[in-house]
């Protein structure tokens, strides 16, 4: 599907969902702020920072290994909030980045976080480090830094691939409390095995809302929930219609079957 007019039903559905999300963001920004459920793992952020500070060890952050895409931005947004907490605790942060542009955004994010907490004195230029964009060279460098600087807490939020376990397991071995999340679902099993707290799937995109209770994010979550409800309904109707179609096909009711395809089953066909 290269253009919207290849199938207006499909693009229409996407526009409808987009509209619902934006509308809910605006409603929330006007002051009608919703609440959301607990996300296990995120409550432990302050505890992890507190313990690292007590031990006199810095906190480590990695915003994934890809360039500036939506997943990385969501990760940076979560890390920005965490950096503020770290600054408030008066602790140091080490952020490792695998992309030059992400490095730039991360530098600003972390510096701002320290400025907001009034602790500019704690921030130095070496705190946000670009290593390389080569996947495993980055992993080698990160594993070395984790072993040498022994962070007391590690926050892994971004796009991770096969190397996820290298960070998580080396961090685990030096005794860091680790909290991780990624939109790359295949890596979640490894985070589950090696980290103390893992946020799963869409929780990754809901994390900022949960940490900050910011109306914009909360409104967005409501929009996403309504969209999910629409999708579930569509699937359930689809199951019923497909069953009738199967029955019709088996009993020679071809006319019915053609209509079911025309008016529902094939609407979203691309």
């Amino acid at each position, binding site marked *: 599907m290269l*253009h*919207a007019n290849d199938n207006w039903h499909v*693009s229409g559905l996407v526009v409808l969902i*987009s509209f619902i*999300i*934006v509308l809910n963001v*605006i409603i929330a920004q006007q002051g009608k702020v919703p609440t959301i459920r607990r996300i296990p793992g995120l409550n432990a952020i302050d505890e992890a920072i507190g313990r690292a500070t007590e031990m006199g060890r810095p906190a480590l952050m990695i915003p994934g290994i890809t*360039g500036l895409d939506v997943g990385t*931005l*969501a990760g940076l*947004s979560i890390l*920005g*909030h965490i950096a*503020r907490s770290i600054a408030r605790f008066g602790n140091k942060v080490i952020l490792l*980045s695998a*992309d*030059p542009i992400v*490095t730039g*955004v991360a*530098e*600003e*994010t972390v510096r*701002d976080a320290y400025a*907001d907490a009034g602790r500019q004195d704690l921030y130095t*230029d070496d705190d946000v*480090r*670009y*290593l*390389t*964009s*080569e*996947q*495993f*060279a980055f992993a*080698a460098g990160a594993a070395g830094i984790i072993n040498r600087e022994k962070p007391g807490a590690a926050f892994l939020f971004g796009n991770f691939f*096969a*190397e996820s*376990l*290298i960070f*998580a397991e*080396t961090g*685990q071995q030096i005794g860091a409390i680790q909290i991780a999340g990624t*939109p790359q*679902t295949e890596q979640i099993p*490894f985070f*589950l*095995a*090696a980290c103390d707290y893992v946020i*799963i*799937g*869409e929780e*990754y*995109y809901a994390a900022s809302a949960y940490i*900050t209770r*910011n109306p*914009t994010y909360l409104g*967005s*979550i409501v929009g*996403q929930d309504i969209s*999910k409800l629409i999708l579930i309904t569509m699937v359930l109707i689809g199951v019923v219609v497909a069953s009738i179609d199967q029955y019709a096909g088996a009993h020679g009711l071809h006319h019915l079957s053609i209509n079911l395809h025309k008016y529902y089953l094939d609407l979203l066909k691309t």
Partner: protein
Amino acid sequence: MKKFFQPINVHEHPGAFFAHIALGLAVMFGVLAVLHVAPKQYRKSIIAVFTFLGGLYYVAEFFLPAKGGSNRLTQYNDLVANIFTVVGAYAIGLGVISLLQMHIRKVVRTSPGWGNSAALVISFFAMTTFGLLNAYAPKKVLLHGSGMHVTNSDVFNFLFAGGIGNFGSAIFSMIAFFIASAAYRAFRIRSLESSLLMTAALIIMLGSVGFGTVLTNWLPLGDNPKTEFWANFRIENIAQWLLLQVNTPAQRGILFGITLGELAMALRLWLSLERGSYFDKEV
């Protein structure tokens, strides 16, 4: 106006070529200067406008009705991609400055571990130099005599195939160690969740390796309709069923949620509805 942007051959009209470059740069810097002297309260809006424009092309290209796979904008897809690639490539300096600054400082101050930092800096310059030499003059002989014949491309291969290639595989294979220790630690009957994690992993493991499949090898293979039913209980078939019938819908459920989250985040960014430390700061 359109004529102004036409290509000019630098060898035939060097004067015109450089004049255009100078004028173009002057106008660009002029625009930037105007943006910079604009009152500070407009800065947030300026950023919002540019963010919106940055995404507008792709949105418009997608939604404008197309005939035969292309519309008025489709022909510019390559150009837009090229512009983003080229501008993005300039950012490489951000990374290089960040890393080299730190390590050169270490070498200059001979602070602990400066030897390693020196190794990093030397490898960096060696790779950059021989990478470029390999691109421009791969066959040029560097060392010759006493049975030796070393070209630029040989040195590049030493660094690339011998170094980067092997080192990458080594780090990749390190995951094998970690997967073993992580499995040992995580697969415990500690809670219902960790028990489920363990059970599924063990079934898949047994189903995919020699001694596991031996366990149920007394069951028929299933190539005969009479015994077909019992073949379902072979461990490799149970493993396959788990991956297809349990794993697939679970992954799809996650995908639904994640994609919606991604869409919401993208919309907030594009329309500058995003809030948070980076986006809220007064500039």
